[in-house]
C-alpha cells in the first residue's frame, strides 16, 4: 500500500533522511521510532506527498508520487500533522466540514458527524476550537485526518496531549483501522504505544537503523534468553549456574533468585537444562523466554536519548 524506496531528503547541505526503504501493507500498523531530529517528520511528509524526496521514490497503492498525481494520491491519505493546526475561530464542525469538502466528500455532513461521534466530540461540535482543551484539539485533528476514510493513515505523535483514557481510544481506533485493511504509519516517542500497536517498527536516525517486528528486533538485538526463577529452598545459585552450563546453557547469569541464559536450540535444550536443575534440588517457580522492552532495543541501537537528541537537533528551525 505504501512504499518508500531508497528515499533521501536534503535541506541544503544537511541530510535529514538518507537512503530509507520500507513497505507498509494494508492492514498493517507500522511504527516509526527515533530521537528528535531523526527525520521522522520529514519521512512522514514525504510519504504524505507534502515534500518530495531528493532521491528515491514514494508510491501509494503502487502509484509513484509525481507532480501530476500528487493531489489524487493525497486524497487517499489521512495525515495527522505534528501540531493540530486547527482554525481556532471556527467551530469543530466547521473545521471538519471544510476538510471533508476539500477531500471531495459530498454531502460532507454524514462523514463529519461520524468523525465527531467517533472521538466523542459531537456534543462540542458548535464550540469554537479556541475554547477546546489541548486533548480535544488533538482528538479533533485525528477526526480531521480520518474524515474521508483514507486508505493510508499517517500519524505524527497521535497520543500527544491525550489523557490515558483517550489514548486508549486512539489505540483501539488504530487497531480498528488495521482490521479494516488500512495501512497505518505512526511516528512517536511513545515506545509503550508502539509496543502495543505496531506490527513492525523502523528505528531511524537519519538512516534506517533497523526494521522488523518488535519481537524479532528484540531477538536480533539481545538474542533469545531463557529465564528460570527459583522458589523456596535451592542450592546456591552459582552452583546451579554451573549445572545449567553443563547441561548446554551459555552465558548463564544470576539475577536475583533467577538464572538467565541463552540456548543454541531452545526448543530441545530447555527440557534438558530444567531436568538438570531439578535433579540438583532446585525448586523452580517459573520458566519463560525473556522479552526485553522495546525501549531496551531502542536504547541499544540508538544510544541514550539525551545523547542522540544532542547529536541530531543541532540545527533548530529545520524539520525533524
Amino acid at each position, binding site marked *: 500500500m505504501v512504499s518508500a524506496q531508497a528515499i533521501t531528503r536534503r535541506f541544503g547541505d544537511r541530510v535529514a533522511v538518507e537512503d530509507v526503504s520500507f513497505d507498509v501493507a494494508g492492514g498493517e500498523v507500522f511504527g516509526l521510532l527515533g530521537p528528535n531530529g531523526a527525520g521522522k517528520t520529514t519521512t512522514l511528509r514525504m510519504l504524505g506527498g507534502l515534500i518530495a524526496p531528493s532521491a528515491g521514490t514514494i508510491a501509494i497503492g503502487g502509484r509513484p508520487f509525481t507532480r501530476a498525481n500528487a*493531489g489524487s494520491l493525497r486524497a487517499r491519505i489521512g495525515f495527522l500533522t505534528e501540531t493540530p493546526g486547527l482554525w481556532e475561530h*471556527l467551530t469543530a464542525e466547521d473545521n471538519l466540514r471544510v476538510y471533508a469538502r476539500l477531500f471531495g466528500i459530498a454531502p460532507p455532513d454524514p462523514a463529519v458527524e461520524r468523525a465527531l461521534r467517533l472521538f466523542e466530540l459531537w456534543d462540542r461540535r458548535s464550540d469554537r476550537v479556541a475554547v477546546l482543551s489541548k486533548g480535544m484539539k488533538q482528538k479533533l485533528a485525528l477526526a480531521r485526518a480520518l474524515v474521508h476514510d483514507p486508505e493510508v493513515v499517517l500519524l505524527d505523535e497521535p497520543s500527544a496531549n491525550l489523557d490515558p483514557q483517550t489514548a486508549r481510544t486512539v489505540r483501539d481506533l488504530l487497531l480498528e483501522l488495521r482490521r479494516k485493511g488500512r495501512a497505518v504509519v505512526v511516528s512517536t516517542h511513545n515506545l509503550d504505544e508502539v509496543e502495543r500497536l505496531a506490527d513492525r517498527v523502523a528505528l531511524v536516525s537519519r538512516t534506517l537503523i533497523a526494521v522488523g517486528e518488535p519481537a524479532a528486533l528484540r531477538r536480533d538485538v539481545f538474542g533469545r534468553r531463557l529465564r528460570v526463577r527459583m522458589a523456596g529452598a535451592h542450592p546456591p545459585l552459582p552452583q546451579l549456574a554451573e549445572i545449567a552450563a553443563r547441561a548446554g546453557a551459555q552465558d548463564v547469569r544470576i539475577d536475583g533468585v533467577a538464572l538467565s541464559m541463552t540456548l543454541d536450540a531452545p526448543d530441545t535444550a530447555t527440557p534438558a537444562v530444567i531436568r538438570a536443575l531439578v535433579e540438583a534440588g532446585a525448586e523452580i517457580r517459573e520458566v519463560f523466554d525473556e522479552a526485553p522492552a522495546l525501549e531496551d532495543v531502542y536504547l541499544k541501537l540508538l544510544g541514550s536519548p539525551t545523547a542522540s537528541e544532542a547529536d541530531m537537533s543541532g540545527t533548530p528551525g529545520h524539520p525533524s
Partner: protein
Amino acid sequence: MNADRIAVLIGKELREFRANPAAVIPVLLLIVVCTFMPFVVVYVVPLLTGQSIATDRSLEQVIAAARVNIPGLADLHGAAATESFLFQQFLLLFLIAPIVGAVSLAAYSVVGEKQGRTLEPLLTTPLTTPELLVAKSVASFLPSLTVEAIGIAVYFGLVALVGEPGVLRSLFTLRTAILLGVLGPFASLTALQATIAVSSRVNDPRSAQQVSVLIVMPLVLMLVGEIGGAFFLTSTALLLLSVAAAAAWALLVMFSVALFERETILTRWK
C-alpha cells in the same frame, strides 16, 4: 484548478473574517472615515470656521483650471462647482480604502495560517498551490470590494441628500467609472498580491501590511496633487494606470506562486 475546492476555501476564509473582528474592524473603520470625511471637509469645517469653501480664492483658481478636464463642472457654478470638484477628488479615497482593506485581510489570512500552523494540514489535502492562492486572494478581495461598494453607495446617497443640485449628476462620468470600476479593483489586487508574496517571508501581519504603503502613497500623492491643482488625471491617464496595475498584479501572481512553493512553506515557516 478545481472551482469547488476554491469555493470551499473562500467560504472558510469569509467565516474566519466574520469570527475574527480584529481583522475586519480596521477595514470598516477606514471605509467609514473615507465615506464621511469629504462631507466633514465640505460642510462641517466651513461651518466651524465660518469660512465658505466656495469663496476660497486658491480653490477657485484650481477649479477654473479643472473645468477643461472635468466635463461635469462646466455646467456648475459657485458652491455646486466647488462641491462637485471636491467630491470628485475625494473619490480617490475609495481606492485607498479597499487597498488597505484587502491588504489587512490578506495579511491576516496568510500570516494567520502561519501563526496557527494551519497550513500544513491544509496542504495534506488535494488542494493545489494555485487553488490556495486564488482562494486567499479572492477571499481578501471580495469583502473589501463589497465594503467599498457599500461605501460608494452611501457616499453618492449623501451627495444626493445634502449636495447642491446637479452635483450628484456631475459625478457620474466615464472617469469615475474607470477610477472606481477598473483602477480601484486592480490596485487592490496588486496590493493584496504583494502582501501575499511578502507574507511568505514574515511572521507578523503588521509587517506584511506595510507593503500597502508602497501602493497607497502614490494614491495619496494623486489626491493631494489633484486638490492642489498640480495636475489632473484624465480618463485616459487613469486607464493607463489601470493597465499598469493589472500588469503589476499579473507579475505578482507569478512571483507569489513561486514564493509559495509548498516545500518552502513547510520547511521555512516557523
